[in-house]
């Protein structure tokens, strides 16, 4: 088991290095970093000097080493466009994004799994067919359309929910949270809903498929044959076995949410990283882009790692060595 985790950690590090390499090459090969840092009037001597001091003349692997070292301290230099340290910019906006993402993952997973199990259990029911139909529609609705729609209905027509921003925020240490004020929570509703809808419908379908498949297995049939009540067949047996894929889904899901928050933040003027990133892309603001890339990768790797741990807790076959020698 330990070696398993060791292996996973090594792999994660490997993945991070690959991503780091990617964002490193972003830095060095997209345009001349010097040009991006100094104005036109800078003389060639100054440039050469700067090039030297920045160590851009060192062999590439040394530069990469330095990049990684900096990246570990999350030092990505200054934004070309906003002229501020990237780490600072990201740190400023991270709380907003994370709060949004967490809120919507809770929505997506909560409802997703719930409805998924429901539709999986009664496959023929009118309600579950309806849910499936709606969910399919959900997968077909682009996030930004949903967002616009919700704003139009709840902010403009009904005027009951705010259409932009985070409302009142409270500063706690470096973390600026909107979760502690009434207006902050209200402001969270529409964006998190928008963000979660797509994933939610996605999860419903996946969980359903999983449940349906499990309900056809022998051990479920055998459980029925033993007279185990439907209730415990579904929730005792089926659900527990479907947990493994659900956990995987959940993992990927959260990561994807982080990425899709880009859209939601643009539509709702949510002061998060995604919003920052879009601007960065439009202005080819490499430092922000590569920093964001590394950050996302970090989130994913972290999630995958947690998922692995959960596997261990859920699936005994991983936990205990397989002693069955025949077959």
């Amino acid at each position: 088991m330990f070696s398993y985790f060791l292996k996973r950690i090594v792999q994660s590090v490997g993945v991070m290095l690959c991503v780091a390499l990617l964002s490193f090459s972003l830095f060095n090969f997209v345009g001349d970093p010097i040009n991006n840092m100094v104005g036109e009037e800078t003389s060639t001597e100054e440039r050469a000097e700067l090039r030297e001091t920045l160590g851009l003349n060192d062999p590439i692997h040394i530069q990469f080493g330095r990049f990684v070292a900096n990246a570990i301290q999350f030092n990505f230099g200054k934004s070309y466009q906003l002229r501020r340290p990237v780490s600072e910019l990201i740190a400023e906006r991270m709380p907003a994004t994370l709060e949004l993402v967490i809120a919507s993952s809770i929505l997506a997973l909560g409802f997703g799994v719930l409805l998924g199990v429901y539709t999986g259990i009664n496959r023929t029911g009118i309600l579950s067919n309806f849910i499936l139909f709606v969910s399919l529609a959900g997968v077909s609705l682009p996030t930004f359309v949903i967002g616009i729609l919700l704003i139009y209905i709840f902010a403009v027509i009904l005027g009951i929910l705010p259409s932009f921003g985070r409302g009142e925020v409270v500063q706690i240490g470096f973390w600026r949270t909107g979760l502690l004020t009434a207006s902050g929570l209200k402001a969270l509703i529409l964006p998190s809903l928008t963000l979660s809808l797509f994933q939610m419908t996605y999860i419903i379908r996946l969980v359903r498929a999983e449940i349906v498949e499990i309900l056809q297995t022998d051990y479920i049939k055998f459980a029925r044959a033993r007279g185990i009540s439907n209730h415990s067949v579904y929730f005792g047996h089926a659900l527990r076995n479907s947990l493994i894929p659900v956990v995987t889904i959940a993992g990927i899901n959260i990561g994807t949410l982080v990425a899709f928050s880009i859209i939601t933040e643009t539509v709702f003027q949510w002061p998060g990283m995604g919003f920052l990133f879009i601007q960065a892309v439009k202005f080819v603001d490499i430092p922000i882009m590569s920093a964001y890339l590394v950050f996302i990768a970090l989130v994913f790797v972290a999630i995958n790692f947690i998922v692995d741990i959960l596997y261990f807790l859920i699936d005994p076959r991983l936990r205990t060595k397989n002693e069955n020698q025949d077959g």
Partner: protein
Amino acid sequence: MAKRTTGIVDRIWDSDIFHSFIHSPTALISSCILVIILLTSFFCEFVAPHDPFTPSSLSLMDAFTPPFWVEDGNTVFLFGTDGQGRDLFSAILYGTRISLIVGFSAILFSVIFGVLLGLTAGYFGGRYETIIMRLADVQLTIPSILMALLIDGVVRGLISRELHDEVAIFVLIFAIGISEWPQFARVARGATLVEKNKDYISAARIIGLPNGIIMFKHILPNILRPILVIGTIGLALAILAESTLSFLGVGVPPTTPSLGTLIRLGNDFLFSGEWWISFFPSFFLVILAFSINLLGDWMRDTLNPKIN
């Protein structure tokens, strides 16, 4: 009785797939809608009442004409016009074509790329497989939309802005395609691992057939079904991705708008009462994606219920 069937037509007619197809209303309806959309958009030069993308043909005074059933709308512009006097109906047809082209090419790209890698990885296994699959993991670490944005950003950095508009479409195709390949690689590999251990492959190897033939003549046809299914669903996702990027303003340029671009342009008029400018493109986009999804859903259930 199944045994008597010989002719290909009979076999199709007799096949359970066809049967469940003609007996599944959703599959029928969605595929009908799809066919219509495909035809109209691909032959839009002939179908569209106007040519929305030659500026000289537009008259600014036609701008903001509402749909024909709304008062002071007229049947010259079925769905009304946008701020430039462009006929929305025609614009949508042209836009749909762009969205479809991008979606199709992107998915085709990732299918070929992914299946090739997945198939070979599953078949040869060992170090090669590990490397390919790790690559896939890394790729999966970067969500498609983010990947596309990054690539777009990089391209912007590498080439001049004028040029960017011209290559925008290819950038999109590549960006979306490259970020979708891992799932195809994974499915292909999984299926290959299953097929590879079946006896008919052993038989082929004992006959002495070279790997190439075994992979592409024997394994490939047997793993196509799941690929087809996720491919269909992938297509819908690709189309949505394209429109999303265009909505974010990093997609196809407004001079040749896709559905997403049209929605973005129309979005500014959402509150000014010209709802139709953003509504119809959105509507078409959703219908398109929805019918593809319905079809894919049906495929998933009939072709192979196992994959999810």
